[in-house]
């Protein structure tokens, strides 16, 4: 029989061990997920920055809906279904998706996304780009074919969740050591940095990890649906409201004016914004118009909906208020997406995301720091060392290159959107590959410095290639472009500081220090 004390140390030792390996195996992907996900808090803003030729006015939902419907009556009066994403204060264009009547063979046919000016109804002519969508999609699909990218992202996320739990168990007793040993000697180590990043924002890390799993929960965990429903469609209907379905009557009837319906729905929501319209069988007697509320109006990201008859304007039904479980899942989704957050809160989320990125990065570096020994290191050590450089130091350079490519590839080049994405990968992986020929410390320093220079170049190239440089943005009061330039400079400064810190061997990296590192701190994480 083991004593309680032994059991406790045994548990903590096991948790420290699994924490190390979960973090190492998933760390490189998690770092990229954290950083691109953090950037995605500003997804629409990045897209707007990447199409500088567009300057659209803000248009209120009822008016934008009128414009959209007028456009659709012109181009697709006989379509099966129209879906309209109305603009808001962040996304200024109206986005339209059309479903055509089935082909003679019964196949579904769609018209790809069209973006129109919410005021004039003209289709938008701007450079082709993936915009902020690129970081957003990469964040959970990793540019790996469906569904494998999402499964890999999910696997890394469950590793992250387990690493958080095991990290907390490992850390529990050590909390005292954290202050008594380290701080009194003023010694800053990678472990300190990792602990500070992890502990300071622990609620955020736990929240963002768990809610990340919730965003794709039905794919990851479909079994509870299978035991309760013969068809998952019924589950969706019960959870999120009935999507209007059914065949067209074949009797033509003009569509009622859209703006009053939107105003009715918005009044019903106490002033909440309408964000999406689904118009089924337009210009048919059985037409229905579903108005869906903005997901950022409430913590729950699943907006309520109201359904109207398209031929009479009569209010047919509305989504039922969600029960506690559906509400919980919806709020978790909302917390992950951050749609509810105003500008200040969004910046707080960005900083917390960066703290999370640093937590993963310092954890990865710590694996090598703790195993540093004099002499030629073993193969696995060198592999981790190089992968760390590639994953941590080279990714920012790739992200900056993606933005630079947006300004440098001429606007008319065909398939330039995909080209921008290629630049992202070529710079990221290319830099990682080239850095292998340099000594480790030089490789860190140089790749970080290249990232810093690339970010510093963004405002300069923006000034040269567009008429929306920092000076012009400041005079015209263009907050988005000013903030973007300042963010680029801040990112450059951060990376330059990191590169500068790499110029000399870190204290803890010296073999003489490393030998005394573990016994001195007596931490179980060191034993792992």
């Amino acid at each position, binding site marked *: 029989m083991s004593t309680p004390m*032994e059991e406790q140390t045994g548990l903590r030792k096991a948790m420290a061990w699994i924490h190390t390996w979960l973090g190492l195996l998933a760390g490189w992907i998690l770092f990229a997920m954290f950083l691109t996900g953090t950037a995605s808090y500003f997804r629409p803003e990045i897209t707007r920055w990447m199409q500088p030729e567009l300057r659209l006015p803000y248009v209120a939902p009822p008016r934008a809906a009128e414009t959209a419907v007028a456009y659709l009556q012109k181009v697709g009066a006989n379509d099966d279904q129209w879906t309209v994403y109305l603009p808001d204060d962040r996304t200024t264009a109206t986005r339209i998706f059309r479903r055509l009547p089935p082909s003679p063979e019964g196949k579904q046919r769609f018209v790809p996304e069209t973006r129109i000016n919410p005021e004039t109804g003209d289709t938008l002519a701007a450079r082709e780009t993936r915009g902020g969508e690129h970081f957003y999609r990469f964040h959970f699909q990793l540019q790996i074919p469906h569904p494998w990218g999402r499964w890999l992202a999910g696997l890394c996320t*469950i590793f992250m969740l387990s690493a958080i739990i095991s990290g907390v168990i490992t850390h529990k007793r050590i909390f005292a050591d954290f202050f008594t040993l380290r701080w009194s000697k003023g010694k800053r180590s990678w472990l300190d940095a990792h602990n500070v990043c992890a502990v300071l924002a622990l609620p955020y890390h736990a929240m963002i990890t768990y809610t990340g799993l919730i965003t794709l929960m039905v794919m990851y965990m479909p079994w*509870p*649906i299978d035991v*309760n429903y013969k068809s998952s469609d019924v589950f969706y209907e*019960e*959870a999120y409201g009935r999507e209007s379905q059914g065949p067209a009557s074949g009797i033509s009837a003009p569509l009622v004016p859209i703006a009053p319906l939107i105003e009715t729905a918005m009044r019903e929501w106490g002033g909440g914004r309408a964000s999406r319209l689904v118009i089924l069988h337009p210009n048919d007697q059985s037409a229905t118009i579903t108005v869906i509320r903005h997901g950022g109006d409430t913590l729950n990201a699943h907006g309520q909906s109201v359904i109207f008859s398209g031929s009479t304007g009569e209010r047919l039904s509305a989504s039922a208020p969600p*029960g506690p479980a559906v509400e*919980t899942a919806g709020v978790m989704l909302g917390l992950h997406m951050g749609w509810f957050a105003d500008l200040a809160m969004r910046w707080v989320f960005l900083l917390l995301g960066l703290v999370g990125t640093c937590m993963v990065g310092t954890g990865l570096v710590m694996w090598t720091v703790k195993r540093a020994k004099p002499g030629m290191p073993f193969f696995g050590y060198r592999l981790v060392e190089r992968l760390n450089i590639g994953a941590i130091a080279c990714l920012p350079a790739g992200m900056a290159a993606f933005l630079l490519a947006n300004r440098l590839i001429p606007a008319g080049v065909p398939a330039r959107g995909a080209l921008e994405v290629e630049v992202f990968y070529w710079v990221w992986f290319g830099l990682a590959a080239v850095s292998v020929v340099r000594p480790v410390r030089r490789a860190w320093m140089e790749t970080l410095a290249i990232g810093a220079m690339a970010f510093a170049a963004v405002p300069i190239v923006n000034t040269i290639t567009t008429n929306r440089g920092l000076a012009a943005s400041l005079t015209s009061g263009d907050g988005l472009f000013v903030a973007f330039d300042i963010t680029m400079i801040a990112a450059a400064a951060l990376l330059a500081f990191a590169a500068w810190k790499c110029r000399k061997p870190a204290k803890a990296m010296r073999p003489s220090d490393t030998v005394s590192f573990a016994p001195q701190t*007596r931490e179980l994480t060191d034993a792992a």
Partner: protein
Amino acid sequence: MSTAAGEALAREGNGFRGPLVMAVRSATALLGGYAAAAGSAGLVARVLPVAQVEATMWGIVLSFLIYAALGLWTFAERRIVRVVGVIWGTAALTFGLTVLLGVRA
């Protein structure tokens, strides 16, 4: 840390990290843990006496916590036979029960 505890640690260390044991443990955590979490979530969804949609959603929302907890436990428990038995047993039991109960009417 006392010497006795240190020795206990060293002893545990050897049994804990044998390559074959480690492989079984990892597979049990990753696959068995998922199966047990999925089965448990399914059972929660099937038997929880609330509305069907609510029970389903509770099952889904809780499943990831169950997965992480079971996965970590497979590395915390020293006896590998117990680990394999509990995790795969939970998976078999919960899936068996949901199959017996059938889809909710």
